[in-house]
């Protein structure tokens, strides 16, 4: 069998590493890479005044809810929530993010799917949860009509900006737009 141990010792001599003595202890329950990374991202999260989090189970940091209350733009006055699910493949794979309320928005469909490049095609492991949160915030400030998930909402925004703004207000107030009824999300 190879002498991996002696090789390791040699390597340590070279790197003249410090530390390491005491009897071998039983080692159980390792912290996984995805959890460590999520912990790091969370401890660096900057939420500002318009966002807050909720952890249904504080021991499971891979699953939480983000609340967004835009204080400017067309969605001002509303309160929206997104579920975040971080898989064991994080950060190799992006977190799964979905809007819980039905929303009238060109880039979020009626099932809550969000069209945000860094949540899908442009995700990279160097990106973090802050980047995702900034991206979500941006969607409320600058809904994008050119590449829609909700085609009707996008058409309204493109062809009749004032009408679109009115529809946003109606939807947030719990009314119906283009035959779809929405729940009230105003605070």
């Amino acid at each position, binding site marked *: 069998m190879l002498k991996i141990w002696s090789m390791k010792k040699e390597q340590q001599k070279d790197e003249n590493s410090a530390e390491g003595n005491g009897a071998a202890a039983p080692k159980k329950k390792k912290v996984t890479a995805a959890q460590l990374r999520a912990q790091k991202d969370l401890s660096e999260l900057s939420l500002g005044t318009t966002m807050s989090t909720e952890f249904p189970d504080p021991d499971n940091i891979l699953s939480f809810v983000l609340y967004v209350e835009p204080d400017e733009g067309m969605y001002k006055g509303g309160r929206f929530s997104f579920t975040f699910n971080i898989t064991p493949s994080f950060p190799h794979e992006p977190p799964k993010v979905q809007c819980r309320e039905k929303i009238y928005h060109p880039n979020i469909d009626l099932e809550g799917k969000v069209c945000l490049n860094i949540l899908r095609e442009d995700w990279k492991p160097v990106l973090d949860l802050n980047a995702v949160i900034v991206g979500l915030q941006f969607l409320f400030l*600058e*809904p*994008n*009509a*050119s590449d829609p998930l909700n085609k009707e909402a996008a058409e309204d925004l*493109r062809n009749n900006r004032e009408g679109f703004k009115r529809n946003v207000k109606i939807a947030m107030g719990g009314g119906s737009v283009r035959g779809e009824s929405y729940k009230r999300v105003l605070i």
Partner: protein
Amino acid sequence: MTEIVMSQTPPILHGPSEKERKYDRQLRLWAASGQAALESANMLLVNSGAGTVGSETLKNLVLPGIGRFAIYDEAEVSEADLGVNFFLDDSYLGKSRSRGVTELLLELNPEVEGSWYPNEGVRTLDALLAGSQVFTVIMYTHPIQPEQLSQLEAYGQKHRTPLVAIHSAGFYSFFQINLPGAFPIVDTHPDETAATDLRVLRPWPELVSFAEDLTKSIDDLDNFEHGHLPYVVILLHHLEQWKATHDGKYPATYKEKTEFRKIVQAAARTNTPEGGEENFDEAAAAVVKTLVAPSLPSGLKEVFEYEHTDPVEQSSGFWVIADAVKRFYETHQCLPLPGKVPDMKAHSRVYIQLQNIYKAKARKDAAEILEMVQATPGGQHVDPAEVDLFCKNAAFVKLINATGWGSDAETPRIDRLRSVAAAEFAADASAELTLTPLSHLPIYLALQATAHLPASQPPAVGAILSAIAALVPGAERNERVVQAAHEVARAGAGELHNVAALTGGMVAQEMIKIVTKQYIPVDNTCVFDGVEGRCQVLRL
């Protein structure tokens, strides 16, 4: 648009057949055409020595479903076989090895036929080769008796059959492919990214007017339309503008192309939610790759310049089409359009229109070539599908074994080996400076030195080195050659199962490439070193 009402549980339509399901993972590589070629192949393995590399090769060919195989092996199963060959078991001890391997291989795929020799009816290799079976390829393992090798070579010459020599001993192996002549491949499967020719520097009227229509009032387009112009159209528009201010010339130098790229990038609108436009980003990124004056790719150049020595070969479909494509190129100064359009940001409708314009032009080019082909004597029998395939892949056509090895070879094989050896040893001398891996030629020499030694006579270092001296005088004093000789002697003509399996995998890949005429085969010798875990391909 009429609404098609779908039931919740629709019937399974156009589902794959049982056979398509079984072969699904390989059909995605070589398609039904490749599979059909495999299924009509009949492969002969002439096995000897420790005998494992041949069994492993055939395993990887029986599984994907070659039509038939035959094994010729004079050995009887010994204890040592059972420690290295998976396709034998205790019940075959003392019996014919070709029979045991054949029977256990046939269990792998009921659609394959196999036979074993020598048997009651066919007692010698000569008799097998004189029989009615026609072999698509012949593989033989070292060591091989010189007279049997001559028989195989004679058969190969006569039937234009590719011959493959395989040698596996200890940590080392090599295989060598001897093709009966120049071997062209059309369906080379280039990388998706390499396979685009958008011809923006030589647009044709339909493409020009399509682009003009979309861009004639480009500044008045709303952001939505502007942000969805396909990048090909953006490039064509700005190229026209460039020409108008540059004496009708396209950007040609690197500096001009950089300047052109800046112009394209600057034409993007920034008053959008994202502060830019993806389609203009795509256009700018494509400038350097797309604005290339048409030139002849090296593979096709070799085809165009190939000098025929064999009239039978010359009248084959490939060469008739190649000749027509050459004339097309001389007339139009470009290759037939492949017709593929890469995905790009655009409205669905506009993209499909653009795709159809490219497809129509590709069909037109192919039709022109087909007409030339059919006007050639003998060209009437060429399959139009073959013409289409050639046109789609023209830029990636490849010629293997262009200088042959048969009677037409200009230099005897031994001279070629010696000149390659000189070049390899010279390269090794400066390998440390050039950071290149060391040559595997020493391994080839050490194995080749034992190519005809019966397995019952394990090779000694001294004998190996004197055989090397006969092949390449002076090589026996090279330190790495001496090491390789020791490593070969250590194996004592025995195989390591892993090295045999690895080599069998590589040879099977090559057989598939040669039979399906897809992907690009090794030209012509591949040497594996299991100490380092590395291959080298040499043309010997």
